[in-house]
């Protein structure tokens, strides 16, 4: 490869008949400057003439692009779904065990704390009080390990989500993006869901209670954790959730069908949420739910806001 010479062409040190190493050189090489590679290749005897150089280049770039695409795309949504579910399981179990541990250790340690933090303390330092109880210490280590595992999985999701769903991750943050993909059962099925469904993903209990006719319709599901919803006055959270879900639906579709980054989505969402949040201050002054939305939209807001909070 080109590690030795920082400004050598992809073909330097490559045998023209060895497609695999040629493709690797195209894929992994680099150069500070570009040169007249076709001429240099012929000069160095890599190929006999310009035309056969281009033939070799065609083969090498095609093979390089194919393998690079394959490995980039293997960062697929299934990995993400498993990781986020495992992360939740680890967190839940660690917390549950930490509670049990705190209760037990409390019987021998007068300064016993609570939660995962206390478990980590017990596991990392020698505490006089529990020194005679290796079983407690051992459980504490197990709990701390589980907590570490959950942290590692979170990091994994934060790294992986932006490659699987770049726009969705940019809009929702990697963790929420992964949760949405997980709840929908994959990026493709998320991309095929209407935004109204995305809005209530994770609120299935409330939704079915509503459909059975004895509850108001839920305004938001898991997207509640997004700042756009949580940061909005309760009266307008329905609108905010609807606006957010709309953008998330678009982002999921772009991610699944094209994969290109669309940074404008973030700005559009920010603008829309700002408008919605501005209503709160308007409402303080007078009777203002008016940002030029169509009447139907406004009516639905009132209905949601009035019945379900």
């Amino acid at each position, binding site marked *: 490869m080109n590690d030795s010479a920082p400004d050598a*062409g992809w073909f330097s040190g490559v045998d023209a008949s060895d497609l695999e190493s040629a493709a690797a050189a195209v894929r992994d090489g680099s*150069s500070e400057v570009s040169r007249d590679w076709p001429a240099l290749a012929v000069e160095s005897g890599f190929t006999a003439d310009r035309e056969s150089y281009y033939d070799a280049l065609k083969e090498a770039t095609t093979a390089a692009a194919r393998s690079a695409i394959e490995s*980039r795309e293997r960062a697929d949504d299934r990995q993400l779904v498993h990781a986020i579910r495992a992360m939740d399981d680890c967190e839940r179990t660690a917390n549950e065990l930490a509670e049990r541990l705190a209760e037990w250790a409390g019987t021998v340690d007068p300064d016993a704390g609570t939660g995962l933090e206390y478990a980590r303390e017990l596991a990392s330092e020698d505490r006089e009080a529990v020194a005679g109880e290796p079983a407690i210490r051992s459980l504490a280590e197990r709990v701390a390990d589980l907590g570490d595992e959950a942290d590692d999985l979170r990091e994994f999701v934060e790294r992986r989500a932006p490659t699987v769903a770049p726009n969705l991750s940019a809009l929702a943050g990697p963790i929420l993006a992964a949760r949405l993909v997980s709840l929908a059962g994959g990026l493709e099925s998320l991309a095929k869901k209407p935004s109204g469904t995305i809005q209530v993903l994770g609120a299935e209990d409330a939704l079915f209670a509503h459909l059975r006719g004895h509850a108001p319709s839920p305004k938001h599901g898991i997207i509640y954790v997004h700042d756009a919803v949580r940061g909005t006055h309760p009266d307008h959270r329905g609108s905010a959730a609807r606006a957010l879900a709309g953008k998330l639906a678009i982002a999921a579709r772009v991610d699944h069908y094209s994969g290109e980054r*669309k940074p404008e989505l973030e700005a559009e969402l920010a603008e829309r949420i700002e408008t919605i949040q501005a209503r709160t201050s308007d409402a303080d002054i007078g009777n203002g739910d008016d940002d030029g939305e169509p009447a139907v939209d406004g009516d639905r807001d009132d209905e949601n806001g009035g019945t379900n909070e």
Partner: protein
Amino acid sequence: MTVNRLSTAIGTTRTEARMSNGLLPTGVQRRTIDGTERLATRGEPVYGEPTDGEWRAWAPDRSKLGAMFELEMETGLEGGETVLYLGAASGTTVSHVADFAGPTYAVEFAPRPARDLLETAASRPRLFPLLADARKPETYAHVVESDVDAIVQDVATRGQARVALENRQFLADDGRLLLAVKARSEDVTREPSDVFEEVCTDLEEGYEIFERCRLDAYHDDHLGVVARPR
């Protein structure tokens, strides 16, 4: 669309005049396909575009370079050039470029569209697909030859002027930069004309701008720019 209608109405005499004054590169023609006069190149169909024998229509509303030709910008392309294409996406435009140009290097960063690009490139022996980031020319400078005749740039990222400046090293001194600036990629909230002004000012650090033209007839909030390295 108005431009398209206009040229259809005026008819063949105008077509011949255009071809003879060399605005379109050799290998790009205005042909009547499905009853309308359209730009066309010769090659394997790529995206379900209408064809007429071996000619396939080049839709200006799907291709910014197509729109630049349709709006009669002077691209300086004559056919047979060596081209570096930045932001090839799934290969809609770059397939037409490869049809009339010489060796064509197609850079695309997103793997999903690049997969389609590979298919497009399969039937075009001088179209070289590169999965790379146009903002990092050092990652493909060992493959792309120097002194290319034209850079076509259509990248939907912030800092489009910077991308053009960083890739200037590949361009021959008398080469052409054919740039489609997407205002919404720079800043959605600002007035497109302000964004264009700023991009062009930045661009002038390394390029001399010959012509600029809004592509709104085919692409909302896009500006076509023809420039030469300074």
